[in-house]
């Protein structure tokens, strides 16, 4: 199974029926393809609607309805549109149950860096800072390393998106929960050992006494 699919499948299991969810651009968007049966989540798109549906069939795109990546999308029956102040009121006001985002770095204090690499890439934070501060749960969906280098650090070196807001980190190697005492490895992928995952993680991983095999 593709690494990205593995991550998306695992993240999808974190969602409960009726949850209001905001999916970041890229891999997080894939999560909607793997929502377990019997679970229906309501997708919020921060550019201004609730009730996001699937991508439209070719030729049926509506130029007025796009997702937060600017790509044509559909809405489900019962959807509603609103302006950006309302949209971020929903986000900042704690009305979003979970946001799923990628990351450049996460650290053992639950800090997140995801929006710029000084001197290299300065795309801007878009809605990410509001989402991370406002959503009830922040789930990071990312590959464990970048070109072999750890992304889960003792302390983020890149400019932060938010301080201490990350609730769960899901990578292709395992599931890690930031706690007050540090990072706890909750689940580990079938094909990975604790030593393997610690070797590519700069931060120290505490092992959950009930460590499970990653549930994908």
């Amino acid at each position, binding site marked *: 199974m593709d690494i990205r699919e593995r991550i998306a499948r695992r993240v999808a299991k974190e969602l409960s029926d009726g949850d209001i969810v905001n999916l970041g651009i890229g891999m997080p968007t894939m999560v909607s393809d793997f929502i377990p049966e019997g679970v229906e989540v309501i997708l919020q798109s921060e550019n201004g609607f609730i009730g996001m549906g699937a991508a439209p069939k070719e030729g049926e795109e509506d130029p007025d309805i796009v997702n937060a990546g600017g790509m044509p999308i559909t809405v489900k029956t019962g959807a509603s549109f609103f302006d950006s102040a309302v949209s971020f009121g929903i986000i900042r006001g704690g009305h979003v149950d979970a946001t799923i985002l990628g990351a450049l770095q996460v650290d053992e204090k639950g800090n997140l860096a995801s929006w710029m690499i000084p001197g290299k890439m300065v795309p801007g934070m878009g809605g990410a800072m509001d989402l991370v501060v*406002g959503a009830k749960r922040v789930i990071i969906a990312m590959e464990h390393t970048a070109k072999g280098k750890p992304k889960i650090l003792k302390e983020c070196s890149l400019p932060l998106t938010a301080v201490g807001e990350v609730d769960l980190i899901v990578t292709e190697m395992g599931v890690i929960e930031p706690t007050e005492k540090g990072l706890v490895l909750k689940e580990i992928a079938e094909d990975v050992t604790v030593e393997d995952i610690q070797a590519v993680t700069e931060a120290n991983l505490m092992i959950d006494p009930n460590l499970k095999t990653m549930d994908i």
Partner: protein
Amino acid sequence: MSKIVELEKALEYVKDGMTVMIAGFMGVGTPETLVDGLIEKGVKDLFIICTDTARPEKGIGKLIVNDRVKKLIASHIGTNPVTGQKMNAGEIDVTLVPQGTLAERIRAGGAGLGGILTPTGIGTVVEEGKEKITVDGKQYLLELPLKADIALIRGSKVDKLGNVWYKGATRNFNPMMATAADIVIVEAEEIVEIGEIDPNDVVTSGIFVDYVVKGEE
């Protein structure tokens, strides 16, 4: 008293160096005809407030590519590489603002608020130079209102009084920007008779709008 005017007439009010809010998210809900008109007219040194610079050939991106922007407030510039290039070259002074904060700052400008307290950006570079205020044990940034000389917005249906109805995701920053500028010009995808938009469904009241221009459909 119809507010419908020709493009050239409406854009008369936009001068070099002005602060201009332009609505739209990745070009969706952006008044493309007004943007094209600005470029045609030749205004320059603009201070643009918008949420993103779309793509080089789309929406606000065209103003960037055509060197009309001296200063920019936006939440995201990553989809238009030209913005980053000009920023790095020192040609555009860019301030990045979280998208939700940007929406509230513009809303505050239009609603006569002196600012709003947001938790967004605490502990990040966004807090630099800003007052921090603690309420109920939680830290917030004091974010100040934004206003502009001109707002360029886009409506899906607009009547002759300037009442606006938006379709789909085109709404985004349009309603807030319509409240926060001295002169508000709306590009109408479709111009309708007064009363055709149900008074209950008008999103931007015509009292905010100065001029209505017919845009491309």
